[in-house]
């Protein structure tokens, strides 16, 4: 199955069943020229596995870091990425778009 159509929730659930600690990041809202629509997902495990994407690669690193933090704390987070956000410059949202990403754990 291709990257665009991969069932990320299904992958995350399978990892969970296999005993992994799994966090799930989901694009909840986009403005401007964000490369991936709302609903796009990235699954991350504490052991370092990743599946899916929430951007064209610009913010995956930052989101994965937050995902690991969420796995430690158990507290979901809503992240804002955009050109007004200093963090976005850091991670390089070159498209100039804005997006929000919700990060949660599969408990």
């Amino acid at each position, binding site marked *: *199955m*291709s990257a*665009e*159509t991969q069932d990320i*929730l*299904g992958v995350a*659930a399978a990892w*969970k069943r296999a005993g992994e600690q799994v966090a*799930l990041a*989901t694009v*909840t*809202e986009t403005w401007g020229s964000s490369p991936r*629509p*709302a*609903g796009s997902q990235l699954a991350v495990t504490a052991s370092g596995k990743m599946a899916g994407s929430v951007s064209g690669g610009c913010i995956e690193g930052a989101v994965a870091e937050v995902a690991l933090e969420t796995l430690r704390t158990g507290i*979901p*987070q*809503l992240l804002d990425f955009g050109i007004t956000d200093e963090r976005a410059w850091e991670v390089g949202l070159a498209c100039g778009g804005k997006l*929000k990403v*919700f990060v*949660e*754990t*599969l*408990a």
Partner: protein
Amino acid sequence: MTPETLAALTALRDAKTPVVLATALPGGAQRLLPDMEAPEALNLAAKRALDRDESGTVALDGQDWFLQAYNPKYRVIVVGAVHIAQALVPMAAFLGLDVTVVDPRRSFATDERFPNVTVLTDWPDEALDALKPDSRTAVITLTHDPKLDDPALDRALNSPAFYIGALGSRRTHARRLDRLRELGHSDEAMARIKGPVGLNIAAVTAPEIAVSILAEFIAMRRNAARA
């Protein structure tokens, strides 16, 4: 996501039931929709998300909800386990479509030729009666053989299938329409059939024809979702 929510969501998706996962933002409380106990506005927003096949955030009574729409996969019923089908079927699977191949000729319709998809060797009319094409189903006939294509197109026209395509030249298609007219289908109804099938990209090879068919399918699907 709680184990209970994940289990319920997984069960509904396995049963091919359309469902929305609603997440209250920023807190993260979740519920599945539709739900008789949920506010009507939330259920309506969920229905819209499923109809449009679009996830997104809505504000209701000062509360932001992210609605993730989980529709079952689009289905593609390919009639004719022919050479072009061998290119079309894996491409359709790559697009995330749920593909079924129908061909009563057992030498064509083998699992070796079509790994990882459902292959039915029933007659196309019987197969379509069983598969019941809905508004998220495409029916594509590829055999050129009226004995096989016509019954499939007849059933497809009597269904809400959103995409109906028939391989064949303009002349072949004109004769096909004459035969379907005799079965009682009006010109207006038969205008639903894409014939010759596919976008005109001057495709020559089987993979190129498959690209042209799937490009037309995608255009129909996306435009339909926004109509």
